[in-house]
């Protein structure tokens, strides 16, 4: 048995003086699709943002595909030496960069953060877009349907070749058909060995897409 791709131990986080996460443990293996359900204010978004490195946390340990962000509570200081050490993050609809084309959205981080030459960045971005079946790299985000937009957002995260993919309410603004598109894409990705964690309050979506469902309540996870 290999080590889990994502391992969270005893995660504690405080927001606005309130302890939102009170010792969360979570372990996700390759090929798993874990849905985290919870009411508003239950701490599910806080958990995801801490794992993604967007927000600091007070105590605990986060291991992502072998890396260790534990103890370091500065969001920008995550170790990033290995290409897959940082989990990919897909936010709610509206997180695409509206002034950049689909291809530019997917290649921006490769060119700017990874400093790859343009042709290499574009090639990797196109490969990522192909994985989510997006065939219009020159389109602007607003020209795409909601489902296509979320698939571009997934491709943008995939372009950095993460082993773990986090999604924050990915279907909150989508209709049934668009939600189904996203479901299919996530299943294909997990079959290719990516560990997927989805925060959602859409029970139907969670039940259809997840291999495992956990509930977060008052800062604690319950299987």
């Amino acid at each position, binding site marked *: 048995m290999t080590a889990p791709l994502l391992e969270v131990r005893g995660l504690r986080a405080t927001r606005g003086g309130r302890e939102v996460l009170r010792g969360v443990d979570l372990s996700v293996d390759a090929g798993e699709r874990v849905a985290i359900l919870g009411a508003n204010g239950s701490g599910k*978004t806080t958990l995801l943002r801490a794992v993604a490195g967007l927000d600091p946390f007070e105590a605990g340990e986060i291991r992502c595909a072998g890396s260790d962000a534990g103890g370091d509570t500065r969001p920008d200081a995550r170790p990033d030496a290995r290409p897959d050490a940082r989990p990919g993050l897909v*936010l709610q609809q*509206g997180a695409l960069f509206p002034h950049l084309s689909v291809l530019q959205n997917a290649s921006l981080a490769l060119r700017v953060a990874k400093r790859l030459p343009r042709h290499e960045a574009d090639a990797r971005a196109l490969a990522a877009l192909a994985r989510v079946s997006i065939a219009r790299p020159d389109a602007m985000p607003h020209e795409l349907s909601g489902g296509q937009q979320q698939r571009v957002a997934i491709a943008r995260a995939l372009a950095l070749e993460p082993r773990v993919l986090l999604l924050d309410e990915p279907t909150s603004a989508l209709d049934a058909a668009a939600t189904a598109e996203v479901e299919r894409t996530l299943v294909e990705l997990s079959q290719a060995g990516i560990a997927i964690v989805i925060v959602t309050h859409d029970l139907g979506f969670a039940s259809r897409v997840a291999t495992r469902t956990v509930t977060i309540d008052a800062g604690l996870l319950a299987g």
Partner: protein
Amino acid sequence: MTMRTLVAAALAAVFAALSMAPPARADSTAPAEPPLRWGADPAGGAPFAFLDPADPARVIGFEVDIMEEIARRLGRTLELHRADWLALHDSLEAGRCDVLMNGFEVTDDRAAVARFGVPYFAFGQQIVVRRADAERVSSLEDLAGGRVAVLNGSASVDVLRDAGFPDEAILQYDDSLAPYTEVKLGRADAALAESIIAAYYAGSDPVLSVVPGTFAPGVYAAITRADDAELGEAVDAALRAMQKDGALGEILQRWGLYDDAQRAIGTGRGRAQDRIAESFGAASGEGARSGARAILVAVLEGAWITVLLTITAMPLATAAGLGLALARISPRRWLRRSAIAYTTLIRGTPLLVQIFLVYFSLPPLGQWLHASSPAAVQALLDPLGGAAFLTLPPLAVGILCLAANYAAYEAEVHRGGLEAVPAIQWDAARALGLTRAQAIRHVIAPQGVRIAMPAIVNDLNSLIKDSCLVSVIGVTDLLSVALGIGKARFSVPEMLVIAALVYLVLSIAGDLFGNRLERRLRARGFAPAAREKGAHA
């Protein structure tokens, strides 16, 4: 990137403008004598130095003829340095010109701070009233209790004060024509000015009457810098020679200005001359039609300067404003505070004051910097004019001031734009591993600028009109050209209407350009960010 092209275009235009403008100082290595830079305000009025009514591109006047003759005798070419009359002395002290000759009366106050040369003209004060009052008024005493209009800062002010007029009864105007207009309109009871001004502006006016007899005699003289005695003496020598050989007398006769008072200060009559003053005819009617084309050309040239000021200053202001806005949202406190201090200072003081202050403080600042630099740095500055490297031409100073001023306003506009970018965009950029600077450069700023664009276009429209303020440092923009022509042709209201119409056309063109720019940005796929909620649980 649109922003970058705009800035590049602006810089190119600035350089074009600088290369078009006359050099601030002639190349010191050239063996030929540098041009004699004569400071005067052609907007001040006739018959000193004013725009030719028949060809507003030309400056004419008896002082033009005198200065040309002086320059000829000194073996130098003449170069006119324009500036607001009240700013001329500062221009001289700042080294922007070498000699002033523009109706400067020799007074004790002025003689204390300026080096006056040989007098070239003797005048007396003369009263002008409405024709209806002509019988009643024969001296200043008859005007007691009334209001008298004068040229701002002229000797007439002192004459009235000495005669016991309270300050509120002395109405001061920035040019020679306005006092007579005010008398006609009834806002003033009389105008007081030197006799030659009275004769020119009121002599043939059907409503006004020149009160016979002059008083409080005085003289005009050229002014040079106290530390430039060599030039002062050379100009004096040339003028004395012109008095003796009749050249000065002939010029004054040609302008109908020679009288006994001139003989009294030693100006010989020279050969008898007809009173020609050919340009005066144009103003009174028949030459007007032939002058229309020249006026159109002059107005268009003025409009071009206004356009040039706008298309250079606005992109610079937009770029600098973005820099200030980014400083405002910086995590570094000193950067935030510096940006706040700058925008507060600039937005809290009048643009007009800023233009004057920058224009007159740059040359001494340059000299000071030059003097306190090591020799190696001085050598680098030599091709740029040495100690005069900051003595920029008026147009460049105008662009600089407009850009610096509008940058403070654009900073606020950009700040609003940057803050309107949804928080989710920051999250997305950081989740992709972009640093703060990278996120700003590639994600936040491009969107913020697009959001700010309508407000920037609005400010562009306002800059087109604010640009007229730089005329105070001698930039011949649309408004100053129109006013100059209006004063020379006694048609100020008509020229103001023409200028207003041209401003309107420019402003509409600016709006069309701005709308196109906004449409293009939208075509590049930018859906208004406000509709994309970045909130998350």
